[in-house]
């Protein structure tokens, strides 16, 4: 492991000590296996202690670790017969979003993944994973193709955000993202989204609307980057660690808010410490979930998807807190009016307005 973060230093120290003892025992031909075993146990405890109580900011740092399995690793490892499909047919081919057909665990899919690049040259070409409008339009084009041939869509999200630049604005970055969200909300084929690293704002949402939203244990998803939030709140991007806490951007928080459905576990220490094991888990999750989604009749699937998004949001209604959660998750369902009640209320309301012509603004309800 080459990359490590400040909070991982104690782990590094113990690992180094073990290496030294091993070397010493080999060179001097003395048996230190007892001490080494003791240190190994200590290391294991230490790892558990550190990784089981990561702060949100530490998790953001892990999510950004370049050693994590990314879209290209996943394609190479378990997307069989992958055929890349390029171009948006309008302007260009954005390497920050990779699209293509392939097979995951026996399921034919349309695979769409955000790509940051593995070396400096690639990273520059991919704008460090920040797509341009042509990336979103390419993704949409391939999703429509998937819909035509009833292929489920798998979207892997990993972006700090959509690219902020002159060309991106000239070509309608906002419009491209809006169109994708609009079309994904009604696409007549299953969509499965997994955040594998960074889920940066609208740039993530542009390929992030689906029937199932999943996130890796050490990934994050946020309305704004912690640095951006810190710059607004404290005029200091160095306070990103505090911003990461207030934004509630960790998988556990996001699941609690009713936004994400599933958290995909990672090896202890993060996906980058054992990419092969991490990808094994990802493959198993995608395979299982694709089986589930494909079993749902398409009309029901699209309706459930609509209702899922329709009910995300937390607000107060009539002085009484109403927490609206995903249907079927059993969270404060009792607070929700039934569709019948809504219809009755709507009809009553419409009649009331028709009957009383002098209804004044603000007097309703």
């Amino acid at each position, binding site marked *: 492991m080459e990359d490590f973060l400040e909070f991982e230093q104690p782990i590094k120290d113990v690992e180094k000590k073990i290496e030294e003892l091993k070397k010493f025992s080999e060179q001097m031909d003395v048996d230190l296996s007892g001490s080494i075993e003791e240190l190994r146990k200590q290391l294991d405890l230490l790892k558990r202690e550190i990784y089981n109580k990561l702060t949100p900011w530490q998790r953001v740092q892990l999510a950004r670790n370049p050693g994590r399995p990314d879209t290209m690793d996943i394609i190479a490892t378990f997307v069989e017969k992958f055929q890349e499909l390029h171009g948006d047919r309008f302007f260009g081919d954005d390497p920050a979003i990779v699209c293509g057909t392939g097979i995951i665990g026996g399921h034919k899919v349309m695979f769409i993944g955000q790509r940051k690049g593995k070396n400096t040259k690639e990273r520059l070409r991919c704008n460090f994973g920040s797509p341009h409008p042509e990336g979103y339009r390419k993704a949409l084009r391939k999703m429509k193709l998937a819909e035509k041939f009833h292929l489920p869509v798998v979207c892997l999200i990993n972006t700090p955000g*959509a690219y*902020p*630049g*002159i060309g*991106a*604005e*000239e*070509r*309608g*970055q*906002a*419009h491209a*993202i*809006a*169109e994708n*969200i*609009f*079309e994904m*909300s*009604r696409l007549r084929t299953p969509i499965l989204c997994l955040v594998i690293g960074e889920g940066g*704002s*609208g740039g993530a*949402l*542009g390929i992030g*609307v689906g029937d199932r939203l999943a996130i890796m244990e050490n990934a994050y*998803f*946020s*309305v*704004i980057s912690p640095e*951006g*939030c810190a710059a607004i*709140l*404290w005029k200091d991007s160095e306070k990103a660690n505090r*911003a990461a806490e*207030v*934004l*509630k*951007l960790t998988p556990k928080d996001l699941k609690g*808010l009713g*936004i994400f459905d599933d958290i995909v576990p990672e090896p202890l220490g993060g996906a980058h410490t054992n990419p092969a094991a991490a990808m094994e888990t990802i493959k198993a999750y995608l395979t299982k979930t694709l089986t589930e989604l494909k079993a749902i009749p398409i009309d029901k699937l699209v309706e459930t*998807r*609509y209702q899922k*998004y*329709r009910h*995300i*949001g*937390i*607000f*107060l*209604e*009539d002085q009484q*807190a109403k927490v609206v959660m995903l249907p079927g998750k059993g969270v404060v369902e009792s607070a929700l009016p039934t569709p019948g009640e809504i219809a009755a209320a*709507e009809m009553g*309301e419409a009649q009331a*307005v028709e009957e009383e012509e002098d*209804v004044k*603004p*603000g007097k*309703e*309800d």
Partner: protein
Amino acid sequence: MAFDGLRRFISRRKKPIPDGLWMRCEDCGATVYKRVVEEKYRVCPECSFHFTLTSEQRIAILVDDETFVARWNNLSPSDPLQFKAESAYADKIREEQARTGLKDAVVAGTGDIYGKSVTIVVTDSRFIMGSMGSVVGETIARATEYAKDHGLPLIIVSGSGGGARMYEGALSLMQMAKTSAAIARLHEAGGLFISVLTNPTMAGVMASFASLGDVIIAEPKALIGFTGPRVIKQTIKQELPDGFQRSEFLLEHGFIDQIVPRPDMKDRLAQLIEAFRPEPAAAGKLS
């Protein structure tokens, strides 16, 4: 009609002008008589810059008198993240509510435009920069569903520098999906949605419902885009071209249908609604 205010101003000009009645136009910098700007349309007489309107003023110039019925106004923001920084979101909500008299950054309801019923939503940029949190998202979704169910045209006037509201975290981001999904259903039912963009319409608002109009019209010189100009400048370390991300720039690049000066907006909306009104034979398509 546009210059009624100006004419009235000229006729009043003989009177001595008391101090403090002049103001500087935030766009052209000209010193203009405050009363002109505070006329109905609030447009700079020198450069025709459109000053910000409150939701109330906006509704007054677009909807026939005494026809507006406020709906979905029983929703107010909670503080789902318990967001606390230097100041707490809960306090901010209370302050903004007290200052603006609004519950959140949106006013919605039904009303008539020259006798024709519409569903209208107006975001109010005074309330936390017109940003979209759960209440704005839910109100737009309800208004859109109402428009669909009642076969009414939907008009959303956007004015949001803030985009998705930071203080509600990812919940705000998901309102982009909620509003867009509702608009997709209106679209499938054959309903008309006219998106009106005002200064400024940025980020998560522009990257969702505001971009999804069947017809998109903008007021002149409005700042419209995804990333704010300051952040772009920081990122690319270059000066931005003149007029970048203004309405005229968007028209030139093909992202809006028309630029409509404020005094003409109501007439233009009426014309568009009429242009797309289904012929009797096709009217059955609306649910």
